[in-house]
């Protein structure tokens, strides 16, 4: 082969991790330090969206919608299904601010609001594809991407839906990336 291609020593799961999931350190709304891959993604079913606490556009609707999703997921929330809402304005959204936000929206166990170093947040935003191809729109935080990614890290199943989609439908979508049923 003329291309100097390296035989793939990494598994596809490792390649996906390598490409998309930088293991940056973030802080939860409970002011706990977490690593993005090691602590938040590995072996878990997750949803990921971006927001900020003072957002008056699309965020309140999405947060209210995700609250319904959380209720539909029931006891699995915090056990093997987790929801992550990452702030786009880490300078303003300190863990304390996010804690208030979580409390105001009655977010339950397994739902983490995350902040961190601005450069790390921006890296995550780009790696996870929450970007607009129009550079002007991409800079405007009020027009930020309102989709919710859902996925199962271990099974390498990833998709996304609009954050304002019907909550029951979002919960059903998450079931597609669920672990295989034991029987059948």
């Amino acid at each position, binding site marked *: *082969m*003329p*291309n*100097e*291609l*390296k*035989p*793939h020593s990494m598994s*596809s*799961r490792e*390649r*996906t991790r390598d490409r*998309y999931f930088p293991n940056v350190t973030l802080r939860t709304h409970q002011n706990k330090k977490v690593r993005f891959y090691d602590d938040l993604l590995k072996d878990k079913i997750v949803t990921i969206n971006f927001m900020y606490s003072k957002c008056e*556009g*699309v965020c309140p609707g999405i947060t209210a919608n995700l609250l319904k999703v959380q209720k539909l997921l029931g006891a699995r929330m915090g056990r093997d299904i987790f929801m992550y809402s990452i702030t786009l304005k880490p300078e303003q959204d300190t863990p304390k601010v996010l804690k208030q936000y979580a409390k105001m929206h009655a977010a339950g166990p397994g739902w983490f609001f995350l902040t961190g170093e601005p450069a790390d947040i921006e890296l995550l935003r*780009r*790696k*996870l*594809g*929450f*970007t*607009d*191809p*129009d550079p002007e729109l991409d800079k405007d935080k009020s*027009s*930020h*991407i*309102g*989709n919710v*990614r859902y996925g*199962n890290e*271990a*099974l*390498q*199943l*990833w*998709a*996304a*839906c*609009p*954050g*304002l*989609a*019907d909550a*029951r*439908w979002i919960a059903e*979508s998450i079931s*597609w*990336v669920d672990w*295989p049923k034991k029987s*059948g």
Partner: protein
Amino acid sequence: MPGVSKNRQREIERAFELRRQLSSAGLTKRELLKMGLMAGGIATLPIKGAFAKALRPPVLFGGGPSSPPTRSFIEPMPRFTVKQPVASLNPAPTVAPNTAAGEGRKLSHQVLTQFPPQKFYSVSQQQAQVSMSPDLPMQTIWGFDGLLPGPLYIAKYGEPILVRNFNNLPPQNQNGGFGLPSVSTHLHNGHTPSESDGGPCFFFERGQFYDQHYPNVLAGFASTHPPNGDINESLSSLWYHDHRVDFTSQNLYKGLAGMYNLFNNFDNGDETNGAGFRLPSGEFDVNIMLNDKVFDPNTGLLFFDIFNLDGILGDKFLANGKIQPFFQVHPRRYRFRIVDGGPSRFYQMFLTDLNNLSAHNLFWQISVDGNLLPKPVQVESFRMGVAQRADIIIDFSAFAGRSIYFENRLEQQDGRGPTGNVLAAGQGNLIIRFDVVLPPVQDNSANPAAIAKFYDLPSTAATPRITRTFRFERTNGQWAINGRFMSCTQDPNRPPGNFVPRFKVQQNSVEHWILQNNSGGWEHPIHIHFEEFQILSINGQPPANSPLVLTGRSDVVRLEHNTQVELFFRFRDFLGSHPLHCHNVVHEDHAMMLLWEIAIQGDNNTQP
């Protein structure tokens, strides 16, 4: 080759290809000049070392990688494998879903007894290893019967068939990084009852099968044109592909697609039969599936950008599963049935003579979306969005002993759609090289210039029962139709497999649909299942046939930005739900889709 030696031809090709790759690597004309690459020297440089690196920028579209270099036109374009029927299926197909035997269907067949299958097929969706280029490692794909592209069905009007479709895909955690082993196979364009159409919500799981009944019957058989339907609604070139809600882009990119040619007594597959249209047939009737893909620059393995929301563009162009193949032809007429197999790219295809860039190489377009036009139209190019088909006739006798290229000259830089620029000859993507090197042979096909008529266009004079308006929108990156999103919500008051539709169309009625796209810069190929439409107007003007053929019967409309199109529909014969959606499969997977239903009683929702 007279005039131009083979070596010289290769040098010319390579020069064009390298220049294209370098400019797509973001190098400006000035930088190229500085490197001395705008002159002639480029042709002889090997694709190695520093050059390979220059061709391998770290970032291409939307953060994805760009592919390692591959050589062009060193492998022949494969023909589709023709699917062969089986004598019988065991257990025998049943009207009601055979759940006990492992069938994933939820709804009963509407017309299985009225149109008893005369042929049975068994197809298996499974993982396989294929080569897309000798410069890349073997690729793991998911294919129908493990083939890329999937097999070609040869079907006939009046000959109903039943396809038993098995999901033998590997377990979830063996998907190689993308793809969901849960599938629904859509026969794109078919006048097929809803339960066999392969809509987004009718997916079935690993280990299950799904019986799909294709009556191969003309629209109007139970309504406007009993008992055989309207001959002017004949379909010719169809394709089939995965349509699994939210995962279509991944499964399609993995290879789950094939084609389906549908013949009748006129378009009869026999160019010697004077009772028909005498279109090039047999060896001279060639299906082509176009795809663009990206390969990991380090491993050379197929790469899919799982977090893309805009549309995925490849930097490698494949025809029938091979990167930039050549195709040897006789100096005579050929029919090509071409499908834009996606995932997101728009094409405008030209015939390019690299030794005479100023030549306008004309050919004949005979279909839009695989449906024969009233008569052939002589064109210099045709345009396609994802899932669109075009049948064309090329007469290679004028190019005997020479090579001519199928070139996409439509500039597109990201998922938003084409820039609007049509590039100069040789500046686009050379996809197939036709080598007119085979000996002269008999050509019994009709000269397209002498074909006065295929079919009439069905009348669009009927008054619509209702006119509905659909806005294709994007807010905060969320794709929507009339501000709402796709879901497959089971109707709690009906048996499983009945989903809540956004609106109900009255069976055997006429409707006008207005599609609007006010979003800045985005173009959407909008597909409506089940019935063909005709474009009544584009921004208030009737569609023209120049420079692009826009009249005819279609099932995908390219909805350019700041554009409004009005479509004529007649919904006939069957009941059941179907989708309307953007066929940029990335937009489709992110909810730019809705379900509508043909019902006994329609509703009056003008903005559903």
